[in-house]
């Protein structure tokens, strides 16, 4: 089993496709992107992380907008201008509707001392409803999976293959 990890993934380097030069735009960005190769089956997993902000806990619904976007559409490709002064050619190509992520996780901080206390039931229920995985982490750096992710029904296999074929264009994000 092999895996690659990428951090804070947004825009890729340019790559060639269909005799043109493109780049990927991933928006919203992906906090951790995992590409897992297991038994010749490649799975792509996105992790959206919400932490404390100035020691304030995020609301239970924090990050659900991003995970929904990751499940709906993962990236756009943008044709690069052959003439750098001509910005009019920078139009989004909407050919790839659909997601490349087989699974999406949301990660929240948990401020209780023990996981048995004060579990964020609302977020867990929302995650189950949406089919996303839900992880909580406490200040002792213990992790618990409260909801298991379901396979994303909105994966576009062509888009996923294009991403995998050009994964080196994200080299700067690899960790």
């Amino acid at each position, binding site marked *: 089993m092999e895996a690659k990890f990428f*951090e804070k993934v947004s825009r890729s380097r340019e790559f060639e496709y269909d005799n043109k030069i493109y780049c990927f735009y991933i928006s919203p960005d992906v906090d*951790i992107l995992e590409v897992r190769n297991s038994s010749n089956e490649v799975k792509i997993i996105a992790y959206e992380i919400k932490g404390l902000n100035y020691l304030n806990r995020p609301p239970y619904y924090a990050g659900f907008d991003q995970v929904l976007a990751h499940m709906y559409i993962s990236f756009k490709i943008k044709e690069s201008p052959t003439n750098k002064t001509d910005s009019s050619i920078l139009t989004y190509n909407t050919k790839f509707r659909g997601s490349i992520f087989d699974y999406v996780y949301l990660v929240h901080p948990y401020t209780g001392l023990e996981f048995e206390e004060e579990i964020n039931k609302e977020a867990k229920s929302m995650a189950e409803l949406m089919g996303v995985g839900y992880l909580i982490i406490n200040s002792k750096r213990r992790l618990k999976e409260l909801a298991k992710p379901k396979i994303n029904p909105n994966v576009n296999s062509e888009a996923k293959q294009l991403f995998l074929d050009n994964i080196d264009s994200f080299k700067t994000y690899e960790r």
Partner: protein
Amino acid sequence: MRGRRKKELIKKLGEPELEYLEEERIRKWLLEKLKCKYGSKVF
């Protein structure tokens, strides 16, 4: 979570402990955990 609740939390867990739960630190930590634990059950 502001005011009194925030103070109670800082008193309960301590400010340095809570700082572990900032987004960037969670991300860095989770990334390393995923990399290190890979191949076995992660969670």
